[in-house]
């Protein structure tokens, strides 16, 4: 297939795919009369489109394993087995496949676990398995998974019916959290031990206890899964001596294939406890064989090397469980439970109920995991989880939000990244300084909140993104870049001097002149660090590791009023939900919560307000207040109004805007601004090599587009104002150098393009009128006389170029052809572009109106092409090509030369001149603007520029707005 053919198919497809069925059929019928092959191709493509998700599913599964849809590995969905109606597969693991099912007798949802075919047993083993399964089913203990029923499917597959448990496995929890608090670990071990005690009493050994078989329920209950299954599994293995499952949790006697009793399960408790407390397994080694060797022969990794805050009693307990000789371990689960219970109160301290905290941890993660609620089950390979949607405590009160009491603190339109001094009297901010060529540097400025006593502290930063004050007000901290080798956090005295480099990372202020600098991602361990640094001498006091499996994308830090605690904000990706994490100075995670506000955007300000005991947070997407209960260390997120748009009320926040919240939480500082359009005229004297002068004509906070008249004496301006479902534009005309504007009445909805007619008497414009339709109009300069030239499909016209006598050249959306629409009765023509043109961007008629000059891109999209087209014959003639990033406009001047501009590789607009048969000459770079037009004598140009005028604003009633 050649590119043109694909282009034709694609453009027909693009139009038709948006239509409803009837219109599709009509359009396809039309197509088949003109080009039956095209119709066939488009039809094929449409069919593939409607079915694309299913057809591409295998590919998606390979490339995006996590998004793979739950499969139905046993093909059981929809079938009824015994009195269970099977709904869908919700998980699979080493032991079997779990389906969600409805118990039709008791009318409840259950999980059915089918053993995998490899676990099929001979008749003797089947009987033993059934006997044991029934024994397990008879056990009744809160720490053991309940088994409702044991059965056999038609094809002889065993299944167990179990409740659908909400929650996650211990394995999932440890993968996510790493090291766990001592109290949580001990509590989980205690409940596991209680379950083991009950089963061991009945003579049943688990044989495969591991974190994947331990389920943590949202109410803090721990459930052991898969009791008794391992025996059946082991018996089903045909190869003598073959092992199945995870070596890491096997006891030495199990590895040696000896007879087992309950003490093998106690060994597993030891391994699990070790792992919960240290984040590592006691016996390392990469492969099963080396792990097994270590279990048989090596001592466990010394615990103090991994963690130094365990009591001697707890360390002894773990080591006793990991004795190679079963006789040296605890004799029974009962004995172990006694010791665990004695350890627990000593470490529980003032933290509050461990069970409650376990519950909360689950709730917090569940919010995060709502969209992938069955994933944890797939990891579990055990009992199914039911997603319980977490409730957000909404603190909304009736009544309209109070309007923000906003003051503007800077007036220059180039201020950003502001922060408030601790005493609230001064602000620090970044000021952008740009030269005429558009190159910008940044400087740090402080001033009083009333604008007085301005002080510039540090100039010439290449990049800048945050400021802050030390708690004693003597230093400013900021994130900036002074070049490739000097970026990150800097500190500077508020009196001036040279900035001191603190290292790459984001900062937060702790107390006095102490700072925290968060450094993400130091390989090879994906560990981030929070460093405590003193501002006056840059000395590092602590390096606190932030252990995270996988990457920590965005690490923020925040201060909380505990002697030994930090609140940090961790985001895995810049747009993923932030997690608030309470840590100690060793990096141990004490608590964590994912507040319900989802993604926050890039800039977040968080302030702990001691007097209110509230955590206040502001970001581009949310304003919220979180409540933090110090006694229980319980964070509950409450999203409160006003929404962020109310705070901004009419201002735009660009991608680099920011926030700061005053120490008392009452005031909010933010930088934002209106988008300002500026209209410039450029003296385009082509004789003056490379020199252009730009004059500002007018600026407006409405979005402007403007074009200079062919005679160069007037400018038509379109002002865009938002309206429901689109925008409306008003035209007005003003003298070239500015002055009185004459407005053309009657606004135009959804203006797409407009141009002066060659004689300057009328303005032609193209605007959207309804779905997929556009209208081409002509209006005189008073707006009294308008006429419709044509109605077209949206794809048929994107740019218009008026010719003489009311004719107009239009470029369709695909930009591969141009059409000439003439006055009625004269016949319209469409000329397709030749192979050497990829897309057409600019068109201008010659002075004799017999030809058009065309500015285009070549098919690979690498070179700019200048060409002419003969209007009568449609013959394209290439004048030349040149390098560049993007084409601009082209204008055939009255002296026969052709003027055009393109974006050059350095990003500026270069202006060029050429003529048929003549050389191409570069006239220079244009000083400003983007939307250009030029008079027909080439002497005058108009251009527009758009930028956000960021200033610093303070919302003085922010606290009040939050409290409403």
């Amino acid at each position: 297939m050649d590119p043109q053919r694909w282009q034709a198919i694609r453009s027909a497809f693009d139009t038709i795919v948006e239509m409803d069925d009837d219109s599709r059929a009509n359009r396809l019928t039309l197509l088949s009369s003109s080009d039956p092959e095209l119709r066939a191709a488009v039809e094929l493509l449409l069919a593939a489109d409607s079915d694309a998700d299913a057809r591409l599913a295998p590919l998606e599964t390979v490339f995006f394993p996590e998004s793979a849809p739950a499969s139905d590995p046993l093909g059981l969905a929809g079938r009824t087995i015994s009195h269970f109606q099977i709904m869908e597969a919700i998980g699979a693991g080493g032991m079997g496949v779990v389906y969600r099912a409805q118990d039709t007798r008791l009318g409840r949802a259950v999980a059915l676990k089918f053993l995998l075919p490899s676990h099929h047993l001979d008749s003797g083993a089947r009987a033993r398995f059934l006997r044991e399964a029934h024994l397990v089913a008879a056990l009744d203990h809160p720490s053991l998974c309940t088994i409702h029923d044991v059965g056999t499917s038609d094809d002889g597959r065993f299944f167990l019916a179990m409740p659908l448990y909400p929650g996650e496995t211990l394995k999932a929890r440890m993968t996510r959290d790493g090291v766990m608090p001592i109290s949580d670990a001990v509590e989980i071990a205690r409940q596991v031990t209680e379950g083991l005690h009950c089963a061991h009493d009945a003579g049943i050994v688990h044989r495969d206890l591991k974190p994947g078989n331990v389920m943590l329920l949202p109410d803090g209950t721990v459930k052991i899964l898969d009791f008794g299954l391992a025996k059946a599994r082991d018996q089903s293995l045909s190869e003598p001596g073959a092992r199945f499952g995870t070596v890491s949790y096997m006891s030495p006697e199990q590895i040696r294939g000896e007879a087992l009793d309950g003490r093998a399960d106690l060994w597993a408790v030891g391994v699990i406890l070790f792992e919960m407390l240290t984040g590592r397994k006691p016996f390392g080694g990469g492969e099963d064989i080396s792990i097994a060797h270590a279990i048989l022969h090596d001592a466990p990794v010394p615990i103090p090397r991994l963690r130094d805050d365990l009591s001697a009693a707890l360390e002894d307990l773990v080591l006793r469980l990991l004795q190679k000789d079963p006789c040296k371990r605890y004799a029974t689960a009962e004995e172990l439970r006694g010791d665990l219970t004695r350890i627990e109160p000593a470490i529980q301290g003032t933290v509050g109920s461990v069970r409650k905290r376990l519950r909360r941890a689950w709730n917090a993660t569940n919010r995060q995991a709502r969209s992938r609620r069955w994933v944890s089950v797939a990891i579990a390979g055990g009992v199914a989880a039911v997603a319980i949607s977490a409730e957000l405590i909404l603190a909304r009160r009736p009544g309209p939000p109070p309007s923000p009491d906003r003051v503007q603190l800077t007036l220059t339109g180039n201020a950003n990244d502001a922060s408030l001094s601790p005493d609230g009297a001064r602000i620090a901010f970044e000021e952008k300084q740009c030269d005429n060529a558009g190159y910008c540097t940044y400087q740090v400025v402080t001033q009083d909140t009333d604008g007085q006593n301005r002080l510039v502290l540090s100039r010439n930063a290449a990049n800048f993104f945050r400021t802050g004050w030390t708690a004693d007000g003597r230093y400013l901290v900021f994130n900036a870049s002074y070049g490739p080798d000097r970026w990150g956090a800097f500190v500077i005295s508020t009196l001036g001097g040279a900035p001191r480099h603190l290292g790459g990372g984001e900062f937060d202020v702790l107390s006095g002149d102490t700072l925290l600098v968060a450094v993400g991602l130091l390989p090879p361990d994906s560990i981030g660090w929070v460093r405590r640094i003193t501002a006056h001498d840059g000395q590092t006091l602590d390096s606190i590791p932030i252990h995270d499996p996988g990457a920590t994308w965005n690490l923020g830090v925040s201060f909380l009023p505990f002697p030994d605690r930090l609140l940090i904000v961790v985001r895995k990706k810049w747009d993923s939900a932030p997690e608030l994490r309470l840590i100690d100075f060793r990096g141990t995670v004490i608590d964590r919560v994912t507040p319900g506000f989802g993604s926050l955007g890039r800039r977040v300000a968080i302030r702990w307000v001691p007097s209110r005991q509230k955590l206040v947070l502001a970001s581009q997407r949310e304003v919220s207040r979180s409540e933090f209960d110090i006694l229980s260390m319980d964070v509950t997120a409450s999203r409160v109004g006003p929404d962020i748009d109310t705070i901004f009320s009419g201002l735009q926040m660009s991608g680099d805007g920011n926030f700061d919240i005053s120490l008392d939480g009452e005031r909010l500082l933010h930088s934002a601004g209106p988008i300002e359009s500026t209209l410039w005229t450029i003296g385009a004297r082509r004789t003056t090599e490379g020199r252009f002068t730009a004059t500002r004509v007018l600026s407006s906070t409405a979005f402007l587009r403007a074009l200079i008249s062919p005679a160069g004496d007037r400018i038509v301006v379109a002002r865009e104002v938002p309206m429901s479902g689109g925008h409306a534009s008003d035209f007005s005309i003003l003298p070239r150098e500015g002055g009185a504007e004459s407005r053309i009445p009657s606004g135009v909805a959804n203006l797409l393009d407009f141009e002066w007619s060659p004689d300057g008497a009328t303005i032609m414009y193209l605007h959207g009128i309804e779905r997929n339709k556009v209208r081409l109009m002509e209006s005189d300069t008073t707006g009294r006389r308008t006429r419709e030239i044509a109605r077209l499909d949206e794809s048929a016209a994107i740019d218009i170029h008026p010719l003489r006598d009311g004719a107009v050249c239009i470029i369709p959306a695909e930009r591969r052809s141009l059409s000439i629409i003439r006055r009625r009765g004269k016949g319209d023509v469409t000329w397709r572009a030749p192979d050497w043109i990829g897309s057409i961007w600019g068109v201008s008629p010659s002075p004799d109106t017999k030809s058009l000059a065309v500015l285009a891109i070549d098919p690979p999209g690498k070179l700019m092409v200048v060409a002419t087209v003969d209007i009568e014959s449609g013959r394209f003639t290439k004048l030349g090509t040149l390098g560049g990033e993007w084409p601009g406009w082209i204008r055939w001047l009255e002296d026969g030369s052709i003027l055009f501009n393109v974006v050059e590789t350095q990003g500026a607009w270069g202006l060029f001149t050429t003529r048929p048969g003549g050389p191409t000459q570069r006239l220079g770079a244009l000083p400003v603007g983007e939307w250009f037009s030029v008079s027909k004598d080439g002497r005058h140009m108009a251009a527009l520029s758009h930028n956000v005028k960021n200033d610093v604003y303070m919302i003085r009633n922010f606290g009040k707005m939050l409290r409403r």
Partner: protein
Amino acid sequence: MASIQSEVTGLLKRWSAGDERARDQLIPLVYERLRELAHLRLRGAGDNSLNTTGLVHEAYIRLVDAPRLDLPNRAHFLALASEVMRNLLVDRARARMAAKRGGGQTPLELNETLLVADDDLESVTDLDEALTRLGTVSPRQALLLQHRYFGGLSLEESATAVGTSLATAKRELRSARAWLALELSGERLH
């Protein structure tokens, strides 16, 4: 690490300012890092699923001083990484297939070829060949698909990287996906 990050960030900025030599300098850095990450992944606990999105974004996080890069720079990096990822995966898939067929010596360590699971080898090479075909008739659409499958770019990032509007990228991706669905089910447009 700081120096690698700032080097990459600097190169990215030079590249988006139009310096093509910067791109040439970036490629080996990205390639090495992706290879290294893939190795770490393989040594990890039994997870040898092909997670291109994860690898590419991890490379980004590790190589780039990330929070300060704006969308165009991020998009350019991810687009480049998707290209490197494609080459890396396809090379390894081909080597592995050759090794499986006993086709002479393979220049790569066997371990490296495990980056693509045996069941997925053909998916990778089929996609690569389909993208190459699409690239001859519509390079930009081929890029959009490459960004998605080999880099996991968002549509916005992808649109930025190919230099088009979100709406255009969306439209082009739709027909490109339909085309790909046809190709992979063995049908061809003529």
